């Protein structure tokens, strides 16, 4: 039996046992997100499409699946969804800028040794592909942080209907600060784990510090990690502001 199938089966059983109906839905959502990713990459094959725009569309789908499908459409998921899209757009500009400037796109010298049997003249803009990859790596964490903020903010508003917009916003920020550390940890360890081989490789081949900090692979990885961390931080004020603005009507606006 294929190990991936077995692991997927174990995950499915555990999610169903622990989470019941919602667990099963979460598993299906994971699968659907995987499909969205694959379909996006398949469409990117057409050199006439813009990979960055495609990624944005994919993010809309991923956000909708992760939020609306698992939790139904209600104001906390809608607000989290809007915050996610907004943050992704904002981050995208920065990612595109830094990817182009620091030239972290394409395959690195180290990787390309293993790719000699392939034709690399494939007519796809690798700057955009790299930016798309970075955005995709971040989207899961942004969605998670967004819903972790809008959901308790709605609870707070329900328990204190008279709360001012500013107070509600500040409680959103406080909730965000509490989860900032654990969310960034989640991302960082995921990347550490994924690139453990690379780190050992650098040490084994005795790369000098100067070579490491200027290499394409390390810069690519670090820039992805750090932009993902920025995304998790930026979504906090965005989600808090959108939620506070939506839940507390204009007439209660007291600053």
């Amino acid at each position, binding site marked *: 039996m294929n190990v991936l199938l077995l692991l997927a089966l174990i995950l499915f059983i555990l999610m169903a046992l622990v989470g019941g109906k919602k667990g099963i839905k979460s598993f299906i959502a994971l699968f659907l997100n995987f499909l969205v990713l694959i379909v996006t990459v398949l469409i990117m094959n057409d050199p006439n499409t813009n990979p960055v725009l495609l990624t944005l569309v994919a993010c809309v789908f991923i956000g909708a699946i992760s939020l609306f499908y698992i939790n139904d459409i209600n104001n906390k998921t809608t607000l989290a969804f809007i915050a996610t899209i907004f943050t992704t757009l904002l981050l995208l500009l920065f990612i595109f800028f830094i990817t182009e400037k620091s030239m972290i796109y*394409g395959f690195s010298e180290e990787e390309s040794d293993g790719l000699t049997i392939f034709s690399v003249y494939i007519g796809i803009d690798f700057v955009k592909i790299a930016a798309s990859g970075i955005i995709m790596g971040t989207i899961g964490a942004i969605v998670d942080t967004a819903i972790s903020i809008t959901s308790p903010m709605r609870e707070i508003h329900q328990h204190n209907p008279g709360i001012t917009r500013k107070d509600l916003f500040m409680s959103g920020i406080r909730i965000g600060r509490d989860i900032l550390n654990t969310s960034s940890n989640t991302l960082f360890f995921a990347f550490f784990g994924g690139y453990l081989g690379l780190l050992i490789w650098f040490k084994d081949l005795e790369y000098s510090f100067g070579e490491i900090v200027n290499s394409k692979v390390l810069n690519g990885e670090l820039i992805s990690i750090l932009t993902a961390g920025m995304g998790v931080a930026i979504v906090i004020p965005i989600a808090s502001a959108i939620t506070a603005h939506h839940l507390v009507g204009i007439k209660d606006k007291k600053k």
Partner: protein
Amino acid sequence: MKRKFQKKYLIYIFVLIAFISSIIFVNNNYEFYDRTIVQITETDELERTEIVDQYDNKDVTVTQQITAVIKNGADKGQTMEIENQYSESQAIHFHLKEGTEFFLANDGISVGDIKRDQYLILVIWLFVLILLFVGKKQGALSVLSLAVNAIILSIALDIYIHNSDISLLIICGISIIFFTVLSLVMVSGLHEKTYTAILATFLGTATSLAIAFLAFFFTGEQGLRYEEMSLLSRHPQVIFMAGLLIGSLGAVMDVAITMSSSMFELYEKNNKINSDVLKKSGLEIGKDIMGTMTNILFFAYVSGSIPNLLLYFKNESPIGFTLTTNLSIELARALAGGIGIVLTIPITLYISIYFIKRKQAKQ
């Protein structure tokens, strides 16, 4: 009050000075490098050829003449000319532009690494500043705990490189104890909820690793394409397992502390809370986070494979072959991490209830 105010400003000034001086440094650190650095002053396109590869992909190869000035070493200030060839897709070689700085390759006449340190430091600073601005004290703690964890990892890897007889798994296992205790204490201080989360993290990580081991054992690792792990200097299997262990740790810690702090908060609000009620609320929280948490790991792992997937597809590799060779390792990591996340939910639930019951009995 006034003192606190001043202290705050001192910190701001300190951060600002560190920021400005490090930016100035990386933009003028040429002499610290042994390799020759040049800066492009002019580029001229010499030739442009449209090409079609054997799979009908259209691309354009361009040859450019680059004039560059040497920035360090004995020949500092002299100009030189280099030819650079790239394809418009820029899969391997770059379209170089005026102002770009790069290292000369070892042959002294071709383009080596791009000088990227000034952008890396800019991104690091931006990250630190955003975290400080949004998170204030918690943001500072996040940055600090990331730095500490990176140092621990680096030390652990050094120990591994120099003592190859010690298994990487054991070294990572020991580092995990440090990672977990330090990160969780930094997040929520010395409190019972922290101890609960630490214990739950250990149990959750160990159980999920055991399950992954068993799954690998019973399937004979069929379907795992270790040979596709790029950049390896060691036995891939060990690196894969160690990466699995560390990779899911952050997510497991996140689940453990989120659940234990909410459950202890319920207890603090109502000291006599019934354990059935606790169990039910804890499970609700767990259900809420399991979907998004597994998503984080999934996207963090799989997104890195996008360029490779495209390269394979464009070289007319069959879709099944492309997916299995490029994604098997990443998917196995994401799935095993997901198992860890889901298992940690009931583990944290029962450990929290155990501690809370003990506190209730003491009253």
